């Protein structure tokens, strides 16, 4: 197990933290269990947007489901604790210890979720009024039908949809409107944490921007924290305060978004940042990240990214890198962590290679420019 459960939070500022996960591991049962999340520790601070990036199959969604305790067999939490630090109470709630009734009360009212596909998250055969009504009937039993209708209308209005739409069915709404409805549902009980799993992936850029703007406005007005999961790193650069990059079920780098973007410390982050063209930049040859993530059913020796890593050296195939705060990164102490041997002064006394150590400004890495198209 890694020593410090830390993703870069200032120590001793526990009051600031709304959700803390320590050494969380999740397995999918099978003849050889798939270790989808491996010993992940992170902290979500009050009011922040924590972005989680990584390719498909890196365990992002599994982690999100674990945080909301939504895992269903064959997935199971094989280790770790998740604590919720409520606004109005001194004692943190141990989410894993909640019994069925307490979990029902807790879920959605404290931690809610926006699922990946709005198309599938809404029930196609009942109206929006009924779907909102279900939430209030379950969690606010004292509310009468008129009250539920009133609240449903308010929620729609809050996300910029005409209140009369409560009569609509999901198929009568556009993709963007459906996603707004799903967000409104997640906010219906004013939770302190909203977990968003690829909330805009199926939408086009203009609608995506509208949704992101709306999310930010609501966060400023209502004040909740967001765990924002996506494979689109360019989106997280825009919306997240802090960024955690996952690879093969582990967090490999975490830190303030601006710093990570300006100077990625892990070769995987570096590769991800260079795998999409920037709209307004000079045109140049970009490469993506060759290869695929490892099979998580098989044991991994050394660093999971080593086979795809352009900077891998001898210890990477044998030693498991731990998430630590490297001295090679400037900035406030402890604000950034990375799991990579390149930053280990004992293994690599000369420091990380120039590409990683220097500024991460994208232009520095301009590869051959392209003369013909």
């Amino acid at each position, binding site marked *: 197990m890694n020593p410090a459960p830390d993703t870069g939070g200032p120590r001793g500022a526990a009051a600031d933290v709304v959700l803390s996960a320590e050494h969380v591991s999740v397995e999918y049962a099978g003849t050889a269990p798939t270790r989808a999340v491996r010993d992940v520790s992170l902290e979500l601070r009050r009011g922040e947007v924590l972005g989680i990036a990584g*390719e498909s199959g890196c365990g992002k969604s599994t982690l999100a489901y674990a945080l909301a305790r939504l895992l269903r067999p064959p997935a199971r939490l094989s280790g770790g604790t998740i604590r919720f630090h409520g606004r109005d109470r001194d004692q943190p709630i141990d989410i894993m210890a909640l019994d069925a009734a307490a979990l029902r009360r807790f879920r959605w009212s404290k931690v809610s979720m926006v699922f990946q596909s709005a198309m599938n998250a809404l029930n196609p055969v009942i109206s929006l009024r009924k779907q909102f009504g279900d939430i209030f009937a379950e969690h606010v039993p004292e509310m009468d039908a008129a009250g539920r209708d009133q609240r449903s209308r308010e929620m729609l209005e809050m996300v910029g949809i005409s209140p009369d739409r409560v009569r609509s069915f999901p198929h009568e709404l556009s993709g963007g409107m459906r996603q707004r409805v799903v967000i409104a549902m997640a906010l219906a009980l004013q939770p302190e944490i909203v977990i968003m799993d690829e909330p805009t992936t199926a939408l086009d850029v203009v609608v995506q921007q509208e949704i992101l703007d709306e999310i930010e406005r609501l966060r400023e007005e209502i004040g909740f924290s967001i765990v924002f999961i996506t494979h689109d790193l360019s989106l997280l650069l825009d919306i997240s305060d802090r960024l955690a990059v996952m690879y093969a079920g582990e967090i490999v780098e975490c830190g303030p978004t601006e710093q990570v973007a300006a100077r990625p410390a892990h070769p995987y982050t570096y590769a991800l940042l260079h795998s*999409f063209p920037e709209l307004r930049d000079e045109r140049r040859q970009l490469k993506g990240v060759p290869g695929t993530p490892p099979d998580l059913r098989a044991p991994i020796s050394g660093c999971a990214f080593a086979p795809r890593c352009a900077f891998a050296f001898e210890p990477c195939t044998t030693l498991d890198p731990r998430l630590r705060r490297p001295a090679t990164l400037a900035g406030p102490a402890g604000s950034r962590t990375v799991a990579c041997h390149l930053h280990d002064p004992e293994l690599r006394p000369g420091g990380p290679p120039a590409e990683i150590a220097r500024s991460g400004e994208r232009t520095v890495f301009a590869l051959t420019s392209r003369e013909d198209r």
Partner: protein
Amino acid sequence: MSVLEVRNLTVEFAQRDGSRLRAVDNVSFELRAGETLALVGESGSGKSTVARALSQLLTPSGGQVMLRGQPAGQRGRALRRYRSDVQMVFQDPFASLNPSFPVEHHIRRPLRISGHPRAGLDQKIDQLLEAVNLAPPRVMAGKYPHELSGGQRQRVAIARALAPEPAVMLADEPVSMLDVSIRLEIMNLLDALKRDRNLALLYITHDLATARHFSARIMVMYRGEIVEQGPVDEVILNPAHPYTQLLESAVPHAAADRAQVAAQRHERLRQRKAASAASAAEGGEIAANTGCRFRARCPHAMEICATPPPDFDVQSGHTARCWLHNRAPSAAPAAEDLASPHVRELSAEPAFLQAISKEKN
């Protein structure tokens, strides 16, 4: 050299109430050998319908498609020949391959249909798999779709499209279902194939960044019409149509700092609120299919926009279907027609162009 020429392509769909929905309206363009043309626009703008009409998966209601100067074959052998010349790569590689057949089957069939002799089929299949970097080809040929990753499946779909040795490839959102990290590999592959085989490539996407990086020319589609087209850098770095400007500004700005991003976000929210209040005040009476189709969402809308705008030249080879670029005011309705005060300040063209160039700096 123009390989495929499309003139006034129109596609209409019958609706339940008997009316007809015009999904593609008088679209004209040409595809040139060895060149990528990007077609961008939001969901529902008609991009995919253009591709489906060009591959004759649906019958256009009007217009002409010319392949190497000859009208496209409509039926029988002529249609088969046309289809082997114009191939398509679909968006979803999880749906476009048959799960009950191995990779080999997907490539053997188009080879046979396009008349490849039985002898040497296996070698040809191997060549095609190698061309899309699926190695070793004999092993890959025996795999089933479920054994492949999304990127590998899309490579199979590309190999399948290459099998009849087409002159034109229509790629409909070929990477939008794939992970960001492998999108570039597929785009680089398409780019290399286009260059090596002198393919005319139509790249349909809603991602402006890859459109810019992998194409020479671009067309922007909005509700069935091409509203702007021209050289790709020209259109994306100096967008002329307000819709293109909206698309361009919606792309996340990785380089911007957080405070700036927040300020821009507040400004957009304010504008959107004002726009929705304004349209509510007007009772939402802007009919959908009269005049400029973008005018209900357009920050620069003016009275003349109720008249459908023609294509105006912005620069040579760069046109925009927008009254703001009308440089011959005498040809337009008289200035009094634009006299409503809030319209006047927005519609003065020089001020507008100044504003754009200021934003750019």
